[in-house]
């Protein structure tokens, strides 16, 4: 059974249709890259998965459970949405770290807040906090930031900030980790360190959806690629095939245009 099933998602902004009949599956441990030009709907799709936008139509299932059904308002109640969105993690293009917290606090904050809802929180407070902090430090170490745990975001480079953001998303152990153009806000010399981290996550079989403009990276790291244009999925298939032997004319044009710009 796929970990994620997206069925017939449709989304309008006013009169503009930004997503049309989007359907795909994602298997556990696989990385899916979504490519396409700006305005093709990639980011909106990710935002729908993370409940930052509400699709007008369609369903989203995780591990066979219907998390969202546009036809069933009961699936859209705020209190439940909060729990459901924890199936997904999201790394933003602009990092969105919390500026008043250190790197470590950014990673542990949400987990600490969730821990307070545990029934045995009061009795095991110290133990729980120690465990959360240890895990936070370990995540930062995995991101190559062990020595930056006590730095505030403004003291970190863009690449470092984005790696903190990745650690922050991983801390809640999402079933599916989503990246929204994770390197687009970075100087070219800083993209490498972020891509390297994502690559290592892929090697560790983290289930991921990556919206990206880095074609070579998508080809090498993703298992599947979806090419979107004008709010529809034009082509999807194994990563190498889509990049090296695209079947659709629109995909070919996009890739050719992209190769020229490089």
């Amino acid at each position, binding site marked *: 059974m796929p970990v994620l099933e997206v069925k017939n998602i449709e989304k309008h902004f006013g009169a503009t249709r930004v997503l049309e009949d989007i359907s795909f599956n994602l298997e556990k441990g696989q990385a899916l890259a979504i490519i396409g030009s700006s305005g093709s709907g990639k980011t909106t799709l990710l935002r729908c998965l993370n409940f930052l936008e509400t699709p007008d139509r369609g369903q989203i299932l995780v591990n066979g459970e219907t998390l969202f059904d546009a036809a069933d308002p009961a699936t859209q109640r705020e209190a439940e949405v909060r729990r459901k969105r924890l199936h997904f993690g999201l790394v933003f293009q602009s990092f969105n770290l919390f*500026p008043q917290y250190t790197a470590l606090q950014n990673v542990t904050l949400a987990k600490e*807040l969730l821990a307070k809802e545990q029934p045995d929180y009061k009795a095991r407070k110290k133990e729980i906090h120690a465990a959360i902090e240890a895990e936070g430090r370990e995540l930062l170490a995995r991101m190559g930031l062990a020595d930056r745990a006590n730095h505030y975001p403004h003291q970190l480079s863009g690449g470092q900030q984005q790696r903190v953001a990745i650690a922050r998303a991983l801390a809640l152990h999402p079933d599916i980790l989503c990246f929204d153009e994770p390197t687009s806000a970075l100087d070219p010399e800083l993209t490498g360190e972020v891509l390297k981290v994502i690559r290592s996550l892929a090697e560790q079989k983290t289930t991921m959806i990556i919206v990206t403009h880095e074609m070579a990276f998508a080809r090498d790291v993703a298992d599947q690629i979806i090419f979107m244009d004008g709010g529809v999925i034009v082509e999807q298939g194994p990563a190498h095939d889509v990049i090296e032997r695209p079947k659709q004319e629109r995909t070919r044009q996009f890739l050719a245009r992209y190769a020229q710009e490089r």
Partner: protein
Amino acid sequence: MLLSVTLTLLEGLGATLKLFALTLLFALPLGLVIALGAMSRLTPLRWFVSMVVWVVRGTPLMIQILIIFYGPGLLFDLPLLPRFGAALLSFVINYACYFSEIYRGGIQSIPRGQYEAGEVLGMTRSQIFFKVTLLQVIKRIVPPMGNEFITLVKDTALVRVISVYEIIWMGESYIKKGMIWPLFYTAVFYLVVNGILTLLFRWAEKKLDYFR
């Protein structure tokens, strides 16, 4: 002479500071309520609140004091409010409206990404407000609040229009006796109070300087 003037002015300063402190006590929270109203999703409420803020900020505080003190009696035959109470009420309404605009500006200057980051991490609305945005808002509103506090100290002198005695009234009383220096002395009291406020706000800004 110096001692007697000092004691008289200190008495006036007491009234001034009492009005200052009580205005802050009530206007700071009321301002937040007004700010939330001005940002409400309910359009009629938003309009109503914006209208009130516009009127209060657009008319002189002195008129508001006079209307609140004399209005109930002249319009509705109600008993007058105590003078100090009427003065305090006018100040609270007036300053709450100014504070509300500062709060609103501060809250709206927080990038949407901060809220969204909190949301995707499973935080509740109140957790996002208290744990993520509040301190960022405070950092942004400290400088404009400092201005308002200092203006408030000086505005308290307006209450003389309904014969509430404060420090300038006391200082001025010596003019009849042919003395001008107590008025300069009064100004020194203001400078000291506002100097302390300036230092406090500078300290707060510095405290919040550890993040951007």
